[in-house]
């Protein structure tokens, strides 16, 4: 599934974009990024962060945000302005990225619903990672849209809890971001 799939028109003007910010992993860097979004009134739909190169001390922050094209342009410019920022990439505009999200989905039930849940999970290539007589925890990976669909299908089948990682993104082909 390509980035193109997340370019959902939320309204006439608002678009959803996936951005990656490569930053120096210094104290408070996540607070700077998050504070920029809250301070300037931008949305964060999901956010994923982890150190990706311990030797170079760089962390990669992937943010799904929404706004008008003007606002998205401002968000990118403001992120580039932060002192610890190495690079900012907009996967949605560039249309060259792959994005994935992982979720853990807990379903509780017995009988027919339990069987149906397992059958659905199989169709979505979700894998049970914890099983009891009355519950499953499924691990599912895919686009946020796919996870939304899976969670919706599990709801009538005894959905108890959902934990999502937010989106991770990377470019296609041999190059780095």
């Amino acid at each position, binding site marked *: 599934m390509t980035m193109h799939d997340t370019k959902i028109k939320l309204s006439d003007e608002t678009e959803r974009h996936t951005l990656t910010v490569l*930053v*120096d992993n210094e*104290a*408070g860097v996540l*607070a*700077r990024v998050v*504070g920029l979004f809250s*301070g300037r009134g931008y949305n964060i739909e999901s956010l994923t962060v982890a150190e990706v190169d311990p030797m170079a001390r760089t962390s990669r922050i992937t943010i799904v945000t929404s706004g008008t094209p*003007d606002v998205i*342009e*401002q968000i990118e*410019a*403001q992120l*580039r*302005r932060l*002192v*610890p*920022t*190495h690079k900012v990439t907009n996967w949605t505009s560039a249309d060259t990225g792959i994005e994935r999200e992982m979720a853990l989905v807990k379903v509780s039930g017995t009988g027919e619903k339990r069987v149906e849940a397992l059958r659905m999970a199989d169709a979505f290539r979700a894998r049970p990672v914890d099983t009891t007589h009355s519950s499953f925890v499924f691990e599912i990976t895919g686009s946020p849209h796919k996870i939304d669909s899976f969670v919706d299908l599990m709801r009538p089948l005894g959905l108890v809890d959902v934990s999502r990682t937010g989106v991770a993104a990377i470019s296609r082909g041999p190059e780095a971001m």
Partner: protein
Amino acid sequence: MDKDDTLQQALAAQAAPDAMLGAMNGTMTGAQMVIQALRDQGVTHIFGYPGGAVLPIYDALFQVEGITHVLVRHEQGAVHAAEGYARSTGKPGVVLVTSGPGATNAVTGLTDALMDSIPLVVLTGQVPSHLIGTDAFQECDTVGITRPCTKHNWLVKHVGDLSRVLHEAFQIATTGRPGPVVVDIPKDVQFQTGSYIGPQAVHHRTYKPKTDPDLGAIVRAVEMMAAAKKPVFYTGGGIINSGPEASALLRELVDLTGFPVTSTLMGLGAFPAARPEWLGMLGMHGTWEANHAMHDCDLMICLGARFDDRVTGLVKKFSPDSKKIHLDIDASQINKIVRVDLPIVADATKALREMVRFWKAQKHKVDAPALKEWWQQIDHWRTKKSLGYRNSETIIKPQYAIDRLYALTKHRDVYVTTEVGQHQMWAAQRFHFQEPNRWMTSGGLGTMGYGLPAALGVQMAHPDALVIDIAGEASIQMCMQEMSTALQYDLPVKIFILNNEYMGMVRQWQELLHGKRYSHSYSEALPDFVKLADAFGCVGLRADKPSELDDKIQEMISVRRPVLFDCRVDPTENCYPMIPSGAAHNDMILSPDDGGEISDAGKMLV
């Protein structure tokens, strides 16, 4: 580090002679590194206030020569003083305050400097590392609190990082778009010893501001200028921040083109107000000709300004028929408020130098007949005389007071600071500046209480100059404790209060928008400013009548001491011309008789 080690090092540091600084193979305490870094960065003045968490730095400061410390009376005053120092010299302002309240009191000044792009390096003490996070005495999360009001900030946890961070702090504060930075230094780090490295050894991993213009954009810009029929230069604080050469190049570009020039509040002085191309300030209280030229132009050349809401008025109706060139050192300002046709991300000096060079090299000529017609239109707008007012023989009009202050001081080496409100706008409209770095005012944040401490910083840098804080009676009370600082350091600043017994701009808006219900805008229980000046050891003067104004101003100038001048002015006067909230540039009101119906949408705006 345990307490015994810390104590031992403290004692060793105290015992060491000041020659220890910079010696001993670059090994020194954190406190000594701070002083050494300041020296290596060419710092000669710092503004500060001691406290428990910065005592080691104050101790190191005590043992060196060559750095003058100005003891303020409140940390807000220290930051504004450093801003005044920075804006009048082009050098960074340096502040030293303690943890907790020392840091929180600095927050207004930091935000002010961030909004107006003023380079500051603010050093804050912090509780010792092992107490961080324990709600210790005078502890606060300084880097957390100051993160949104600084360009960057650091908490230094290891003495080995300290000298690098200090040099990075100066680099980040002064390069690219300037701004304030905070370095928070725990007390134990100040006592620890480590290796000092000089500024040359520091190269930032990520911070590399772009300052060179794209030459293709410069070529297009001069082509657009040559083709323009109704051009206008709209200049801002970026020209001042870029240094005096940018102002000189702007003048040269106007020599070459003959285009009219207007400026934001922040940019006054970059272009001489005495020159015929000068239209006056633009925006909410700008001149009729400046705002109409902006509205009707076919080419807007924005140089180091950021389309602030005080400048644009209603964005939807902002200069609807023009092509726009936007030069800014900060890429995030491009297309933020107004979409432009040609962005140039660069330092103003470098970009202007190339514009002048390409204009000459490509032998560009202006469209002379069109420009002549454009000037005729501008001259017609000028006949409105939008800064006019009706003078009085019995009561001092605030406009008259500024006019006389200007007339009696303009031949001197004069610097002006202001507080915030009507007096600030009258000063901006009527005190004409010919050179950059002469005008210090809180533009973006609009900080009442800015003017007096800023004036002290200016006077510190320019001991022989005439430094005037044009003030209001409400604003001046916000940082007036700094009169005591003026006395201590023999800083003969002149505080010229336009005393109308109101928070005048609040009252003006209540008159226009809130049915003349003057809710809490009357300055009741005012002090006797003349006696107050006396109590502070300064000189108090008062003028009640227009006839005595000149003599009193002369007296203010001639006495070489700090003066508090209580100029009693007409309490009912309003500041015109004005673009009401939510209106366009060509929809100005010139006087109360103009009606000026303000829309409901306009009332929602600030």
